[in-house]
């Protein structure tokens, strides 16, 4: 049994920023962060963080390529009920399917598909890249840290279309409205990058590290 939050390392691009941001937030509240690709560490994790950039299918394949990692996450998060935080594609992997370059299976915790953002007009550039306003729909303890009119940093071309509106915890708008954060029970995921969202992101990470669902 460890009391560490494990950031899952599966060669998905920029792990560095997530690690630094979580380490800073953890130090503020006397917790520790472990970056690991080992299923054994995930199985002992106090909390599990799944970052991810790039394509849905590549990220899913990366998790499956590391023997036992996908199953260890399912075990720790679903069976043991430990807090989970998915970031960007890590959040999208919570869905049942990703429809980016073919159809790929996700963890299936949030019923729905990950689909391309529909361009509402030529002025709405894709990728949706930059700081956008968060509309928080719940009093979820992790999202309660987000002040009114706060902005967070997004960079993505696909979004998670959740079947159950109750699973959408925050929204943002880029011509069309889509999920900025999803979750249920012990699971939360953000489409935006808290590790790149300055103080808004740091406060959210600290809240996650203290969250006891």
């Amino acid at each position, binding site marked *: 049994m460890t009391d560490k939050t494990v950031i899952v390392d599966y060669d998905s*691009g*920029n792990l*560095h*920023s997530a690690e*630094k*941001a979580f380490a*800073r937030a953890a130090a503020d509240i006397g917790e520790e962060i472990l970056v690991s690709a080992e299923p054994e560490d995930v199985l002992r994790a106090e909390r599990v963080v799944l970052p991810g*950039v*790039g*394509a849905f299918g*590549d990220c899913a394949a990366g998790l499956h390529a590391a023997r036992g990692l996908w199953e260890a996450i399912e075990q720790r998060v679903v069976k043991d009920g430990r807090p989970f935080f998915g970031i960007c594609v890590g959040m999208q992997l919570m869905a049942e399917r990703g429809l980016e370059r073919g159809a790929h299976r996700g963890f299936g915790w949030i019923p729905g598909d990950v689909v391309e953002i529909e*361009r509402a007009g*030529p*002025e*709405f*550039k*894709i*990728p*949706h*890249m*930059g*700081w*956008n*306003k968060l509309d928080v729909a719940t009093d979820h303890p992790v999202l309660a840290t987000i002040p009114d009119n706060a*902005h967070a*940093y*997004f*960079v*993505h*071309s696909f979004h998670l279309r959740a079947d159950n509106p109750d699973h959408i915890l925050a929204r943002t*708008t*880029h011509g069309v409205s889509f999920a900025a954060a999803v979750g249920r029970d012990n699971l939360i995921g953000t489409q935006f*990058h808290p*590790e*790149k*969202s*300055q*103080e808004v*992101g*740091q406060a959210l990470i600290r809240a996650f590290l203290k969250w006891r669902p």
Partner: protein
Amino acid sequence: MLTVRVIPCLDVKDGRVVKGVNFVGLRDAGDPVEAARAYDAAGADELCLLDIAASHEGRGPFYDIVSQTAEQCFMPLTVGGGVRAVEDVRALLRAGADKVSINTAAVKNPDLVAAGADKFGAQCIVVAVDAKRVSGPDEAPRWEIFTHGGRTPAGIDAIEYAQLVVAKGAGEILLTSMDRDGTRIGYDLELTRAISRAVSVPVVASGGVGNLDHLAEGVTEGEASAVLAASIFHFGEATILDAKKRLAAAGAPVRMV
């Protein structure tokens, strides 16, 4: 609503921030990591770090600067200069860059853009388009690509090139007017608008900012998604907050912190 990004740019040579005037006559504007931290605290929306000497080979002082900057800044970091191969992209991402800007190498080999986007995702591949007006005063405007810091004409139409690299997988265009860079008379707004309308991805306007109205024009007339500037910020002529206030006054959505 997505806000317009205000991006200070640090040109780095031999571990120090410099700002070229038409790429000659460099002035020293200090320690890049200190500057990055100050811009993070000031609420910059993103930071651009360019190695203008571009002599690194997967390591060296520039990589240390990228890594130290990434360690201390919780905002997106775009890094460029001397990127020639997928391995350079990987090394800069590993050092802590969120996006890597490819310049001359993409002109020579547009498939490098495709290789980078396939490997790391389009969201982290920026193509730097350095364009110069080649049309005469009475002709329809036309711009061509220049490489090697604006010295070498590539004989390629700028709009066609921008569309090509986006088709290859560029997630963003960093557009610099080589006519305006270092002049402080404002962006080439016609160029910015032409490229912005020609591609589906965000365009960052660069080259020529001398005052805050220039930033606002880049958005209202140039239709850019983000505005980049260096010296007006580095030499304390304007703060990030000043820039955002001016953008807001011109009707552009901004993030106030």
